[in-house]
């Protein structure tokens, strides 16, 4: 499912709202989460999961093609931990 397919499904569920507004709503939702993470914050969405920031230490890496040593700077990466409901619904064998 892509973002536009998600919007189509929402349009079906919300016949009173315009598809353009639902498209904006979906963008607003994921932009808000992105901005929060960019500011170092976290997002906790009950039943779905939580998004947070993990810090990666700087390290020495290697260009796999040339073998040249390169230094990889410290960086922040987004981390997602699935909530209980999401985990259980993905692991269908568990039910």
């Amino acid at each position: 499912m892509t973002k536009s397919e998600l919007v189509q499904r929402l349009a079906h569920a919300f016949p009173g709202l315009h598809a353009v507004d639902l498209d904006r709503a979906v963008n607003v939702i994921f932009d808000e989460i992105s901005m929060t993470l960019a500011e170092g914050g976290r997002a906790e969405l009950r039943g779905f999961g939580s998004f947070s920031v993990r810090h990666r230490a700087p390290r020495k890496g290697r260009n796999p093609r040339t073998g040249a040593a390169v230094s990889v700077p410290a960086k922040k990466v987004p981390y997602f931990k699935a909530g209980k409901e999401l985990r259980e619904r993905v692991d269908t064998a568990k039910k």
Partner: protein
Amino acid sequence: MSSKTLTRMDLADAVYREVGTSRKEAAEVVDATFEEIIKTVGRGETVKLSNFATFSVRSKRARMGRNPKTGEEVPITPRKVLVFKASHNLKDKMNGK
């Protein structure tokens, strides 16, 4: 650095402000968005949200694990797990690019 925690309520507020729906509709749209994603990955399908991330499902084989406290070997059943892969766009945003 802020230590702000964003919740469903904050997302509903943002939708209400920026899209101009009623507050009630905004909260319903936020809930329905996450519910659609859960339903879709629940069927084993991948969800690709461009500029944000991809959620997919990976099957794990059965393996032997160990209770770290007792050292006892315990079988781990085959399972399906959710995989989150952030888009380059999101990773870049987080590193000020």
